[in-house]
């Protein structure tokens, strides 16, 4: 071949490479975070329906938990539409799959806001996904309702945190353990932001309350090999394990726990990410009598809960359990509806201004929105896994706890944020 044809081939290759890299950089720049001066996203409120975005992992390691949250959101939308919609407009759900991949969450959040022009988004589960989408919602001034318990130390003008913050879940759980005399703790968690932050808080509490942390171990998300960690836990002489593992890891951990001879009586495990759905996936054989810390259980008494469980099971199957994040997702839509109707508009600034003091007789008990922190007053409940796979409450905090994401009201937490 002559030199000319080789150079033409080279030219073509070079040009296409240049074009491809230019296109890729342009795509990359779109999702880069520039939270300084973003123009507010123009949500589409013309017409008889408005779109709401649902952003959950429908595949990947977190699907085990997030698919049920997605189902609850769809149920709430169906019920709200059946009773007339919001401000006379019906809601249309637009679902995007975050696929348990945090950059995908950010990308899909942007799609929902800019392409689908949703009026509000409901979803996320892991703190990593929430942290990935936070700059997107702040940049476009669009609202996210986050339904899962998390590690606190965060506030965003464009996120409403419907799940518990640390002083509504972790701190009451530590109070309970202290009261039971279980003062030597081993901390086991998945290696990402929530367990790391939660364990910092636990260590600060322990120091101030005379409890000891005898060990701390992290496993990568999705890890399924726990023999070493369980061996260490067994050797440590701990009274209880505080478990912040998430996803598939919990299954492997509890199977290993049981086969090592540890029991809920000899060394109870208190988990903050195991709800009724996870009990079903792991099996009561491995979880019986173990402890959980949430604000809602399927067994929580009350007419609102009976109605919710009945509606969910009628829609998705009689054997389907309901859990705390599912309930928080369900009420997040109703809370947003109340805010919009109080504000008389879908406009984000007006909705935020109307949010403080909104109350709901929720399946978990009375919840009230705290407009200043954009969190919600919630009752803390400690539960025990029963032989039937349901979680029974063994203690609750009496009345709803005021959310304190930065733990400002706790002197021992002053070094934390």
């Amino acid at each position, binding site marked *: 071949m002559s030199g000319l044809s080789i150079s033409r081939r080279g030219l073509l290759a070079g040009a296409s490479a240049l074009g491809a890299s230019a296109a890729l950089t342009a795509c990359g720049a779109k999702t880069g975070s520039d939270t300084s001066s973003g123009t507010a996203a123009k949500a589409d409120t013309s017409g008889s329906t408005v779109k709401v975005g649902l952003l959950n992992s429908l595949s990947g390691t977190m699907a*085990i938990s997030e698919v049920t949250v997605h189902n609850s959101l769809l149920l709430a939308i169906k019920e709200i539409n059946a009773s007339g919609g919001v401000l006379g407009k019906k809601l249309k759900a637009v679902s995007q799959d975050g696929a348990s991949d945090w950059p995908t969450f950010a990308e899909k959040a942007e799609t929902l806001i800019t392409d689908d022009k949703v009026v509000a988004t409901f979803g996320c589960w892991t703190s990593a996904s929430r942290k990935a989408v936070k700059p997107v919602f702040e940049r476009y001034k669009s609202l996210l309702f986050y339904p899962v318990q998390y590690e606190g130390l965060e506030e965003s003008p464009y996120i409403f945190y419907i799940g518990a913050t640390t002083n509504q879940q972790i701190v009451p759980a530590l109070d309970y353990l202290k009261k039971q005399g279980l003062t030597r703790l081993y901390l086991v968690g998945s290696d990402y932001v929530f367990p790391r932050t939660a364990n910092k808080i636990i260590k600060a509490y322990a120091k101030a309350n005379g409890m000891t942390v005898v060990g701390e171990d992290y496993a990568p998300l999705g890890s399924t090999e726990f*023999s*070493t960690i369980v*061996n260490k836990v067994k050797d440590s002489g701990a009274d209880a394990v505080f478990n912040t593992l998430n996803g*598939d890891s919990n299954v492997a951990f509890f199977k290993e726990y049981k*086969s090592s*001879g540890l029991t809920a009586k000899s060394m109870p495990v208190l988990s903050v990410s195991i709800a009724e759905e996870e009990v*079903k996936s*792991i099996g009561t054989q491995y979880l019986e009598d173990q402890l959980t810390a949430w604000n809602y259980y399927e067994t929580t008494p009350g007419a609102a809960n009976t109605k919710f469980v009945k509606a969910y099971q009628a829609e998705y199957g009689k054997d389907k359990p309901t859990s705390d994040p599912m309930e928080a997702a369900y009420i997040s839509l109703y809370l947003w509806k109340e805010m919009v109707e109080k504000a008389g508009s879908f406009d984000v600034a007006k909705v935020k201004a109307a949010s403080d003091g909104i109350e709901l007789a929720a399946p978990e008990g009375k919840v009230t929105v705290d407009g200043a922190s954009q969190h919600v007053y919630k009752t803390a409940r400690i539960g025990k896994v029963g032989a039937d796979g349901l979680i029974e409450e063994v203690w609750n905090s009496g009345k709803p706890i005021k959310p304190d994401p930065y733990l400002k009201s706790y002197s021992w937490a002053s070094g934390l944020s």
Partner: protein
Amino acid sequence: MTVILNQTFTGISIGAVLLLIALGLTLTFGQMGVINMAHGEFIMAGAYTTYVLQKSISSAGVSLLVALPLAFLVAGSLGALLEWLLIKRLYTRPLDTLLVTWGVSLMLQQLARDIFGAPNVQTHAPDLLTGNISVGGGITLANNRLFILGLALLCVLGLTLVLRMTPLGRRIRAVVQNRDLAEVSGIATERVDRTTFFIGSGLAGVAGVALTLVGPIGPTMGTNYIVDAFLVVVVGGIGQLKGSVITAFVLGVLQAVLEYSTTISVAKVVVLVAIVAFLQWRPQGLYTLRTRSLA
């Protein structure tokens, strides 16, 4: 001292799991140089077989025992089907096989999601296998891990016997050593390939049944194990059974020892670095076939 012994047993059990998942791959990767990225999904098929069986058989012990051969057949048939439909057309194109089998693995994961749902499912382990044996001095051996160790060794033994003593085994070894000469000698290599794939995938299915005792059972469970399986096969020497056996246990013990003194992430990194270093020094793996061919 107890700690060291307990961790050694942990290492051996990690090694046994690695061995089970890599055994089938030693055959398929070694036999035909086929990079089967769907191997993890055959493991998943075996695990789901246990789940489905438990719905009809109430006794956990019986269902586990029945699941072992059944999973072998189910996963093996899936493997043979894959070979017949796709892989046999791509023998001279290893990179294409990699892509094709990766695509098949994604399809199988979604199929599992559609049939069984996205969340994990639970199986009930027989009570005998949920306890442990105390051999004194604080050393406890978990029953499920002992079962997996026994199963892995049994599979290795069975495979060795098949390869060494049966006519099929002789044919398989002939095709591995020199495909052209085997064909010329009258061996139906296509049929041998399909049978090898059947056996290799069947072993993955058996691994899946064993893994229901220690891990989650869900559509993505295969992805947790596939990389480790390939590591064992490559380091052990492609197609070499004893290489895989030794590598699996060495890697398992190394992982366990490092995990105890550091963290799981650091241990994984060090193990991977060690593997890379070993392959730099000896790229053909631990054991290789010594042939007179120039290839």
